[in-house]
């Protein structure tokens, strides 16, 4: 079957959708619910393939008139892990260890065997301590719900792509699409000037340096210099106007529409279970933050050897987050939340930045460059790295919640 052949060549896994995991039935049930809500014609509805691949990537495929959605359990598992890092406030070295593992996968996907081997080896021996082994039942429950909402959101997003492709009325929102440029213009007006952007980046740096110094006991001037370089790069990358990015990436408009309708589907589903609307929306924003951290890692894998152009994926995510947050202000009014979601958005954004975002954005590149400088000229045993990457996490394949 074409989907299997496509996945075998486009991902670091051999026929990743061939053997569904024991919990794939759960995703199939959710998928069936979503198809019903979007009013797919039974004879012309998409098929769901539940896969587990190192790339942790979800996509919608159209092959020969047939639509298939590939849901990657590893993405849900990654969300679960990142949610746990944030909600249980894990020590930073664990986040870096996790980041190195994902960096190894991304580097292997770029064909950079030596760097992938180094990142994988370092991930396996990275010094970690003070694991928060005991988490309260409350934190555990919150994390499970947050992850479930995020996985539902991703699956709903892909279903909306399929609904748009089929021209279903449930995904036809001409008013929303017509407003996108106005929202982008609003975002560009709100965008901090370069000085303000730089000030915010420096604050991020300082937080990261403080956390790092606290973890290792001594301040590191080399780290500070690296962080300043990273900040300069990020200021350049983040400086592009939303309107300009939208003009460049025509498909981005469809992504924005999928985000909007998927959010409404998630609100309906989890709201009916009695969950707080503000908490549901906050979990979706947290998913965007998690996606950004994954995207930062992929961007590092592509560009670590030289300063390349800003990552299109990261730029697109920045626009998606901005447009989504703007549209959710209107949603807040409709739901009568009275700014409750907005204050939760600020809280989760700060929490993610402190626990996950800053370490991945600032510390991971610094540590990785330091590793590669130390290993300069070393040659690695390449033969095992692809097998090791393919085996990553397969022991946990049975459940996304194991992280």
């Amino acid at each position, binding site marked *: 079957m*074409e989907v299997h052949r496509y996945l075998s*060549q486009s991902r670091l896994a051999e026929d990743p959708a061939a053997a569904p995991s024991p919990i794939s039935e759960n995703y199939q049930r959710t998928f069936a619910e979503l198809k019903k809500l979007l009013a797919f014609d039974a004879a012309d509805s998409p098929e769901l393939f539940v896969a587990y691949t190192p790339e942790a*990537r979800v*996509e919608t495929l*159209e092959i020969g008139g047939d639509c298939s959605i590939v849901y990657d359990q590893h993405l849900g598992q990654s969300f679960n892990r990142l949610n746990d890092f944030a909600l249980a406030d894990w020590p930073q070295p664990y986040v870096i260890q996790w980041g190195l593992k994902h960096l190894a996968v991304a580097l292997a*996907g770029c064909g950079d065997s030596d760097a992938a081997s180094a990142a994988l080896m370092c991930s396996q021996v990275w010094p970690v301590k003070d694991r928060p082994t005991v988490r309260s039942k409350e934190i555990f429950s919150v994390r499970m719900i947050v992850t479930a909402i995020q996985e539902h959101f991703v699956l709903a997003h892909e279903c909306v792509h399929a609904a748009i492709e089929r021209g279903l009325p449930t995904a036809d929102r001409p008013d929303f699409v017509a407003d996108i440029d106005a929202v982008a213009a609003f975002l560009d007006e709100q965008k901090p000037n370069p000085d303000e952007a730089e000030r915010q980046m420096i604050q991020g740096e300082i937080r990261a340096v403080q956390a790092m110094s606290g973890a290792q006991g001594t301040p590191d001037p080399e780290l500070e210099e690296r962080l300043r370089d990273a900040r300069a790069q990020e200021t350049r990358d983040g400086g592009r106007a939303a309107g300009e990015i939208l003009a460049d990436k025509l*498909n981005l408009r469809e992504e924005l529409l999928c985000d909007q309708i998927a959010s409404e589907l998630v609100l309906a589903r989890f709201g009916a279970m009695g969950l707080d609307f503000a908490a549901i929306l906050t979990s979706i924003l947290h998913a965007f933050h998690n996606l950004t951290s994954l995207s930062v890692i992929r961007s590092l894998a592509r560009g670590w050897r030289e300063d390349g152009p800003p990552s299109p994926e990261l730029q697109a995510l920045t626009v998606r987050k901005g447009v989504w947050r703007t549209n959710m202000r209107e949603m807040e009014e409709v739901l009568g939340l009275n700014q409750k979601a907005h204050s939760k958005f600020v809280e989760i954004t700060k929490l993610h930045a402190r626990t996950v975002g800053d370490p991945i954005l600032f510390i991971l590149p610094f540590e990785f460059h330091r590793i590669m400088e130390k290993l300069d000229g070393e040659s690695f045993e390449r033969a095992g790295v*692809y097998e090791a990457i393919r085996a990553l996490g397969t022991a946990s394949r049975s459940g996304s919640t194991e992280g």
Partner: protein
Amino acid sequence: MCDCFVVEAGAKPREIVIGFEGEEPDGLAELLAEHGDRITIVEAKGFEAFDFTTQLLVVLGPPVVIQLGGLIKAHLESNRHVRIKADGVEITGVSPDKAVEVLEKIRSGTDPDA
């Protein structure tokens, strides 16, 4: 590049996925008319895939390599990216003039960077 491209004698024909940034590449209809049995069009959307919406799943063979290489060359020369993947590994740094050569090395199972 990496060891995964070295295939054993008698192995099944090498498949690859090629993604074209932006609009459909020029000459695709002619390529399909001639080698449609070896090429499947995959339209992909998703969190990362949106830059390469038109993708081709190709069973490489000597005749298809030359024509496909020409298509890649033309797309690269028009300043649009092309992403070639085999076994999940991207072949980076393909220049317009080397497109046919790289495809031939993948087809024959030799290291594209060797």
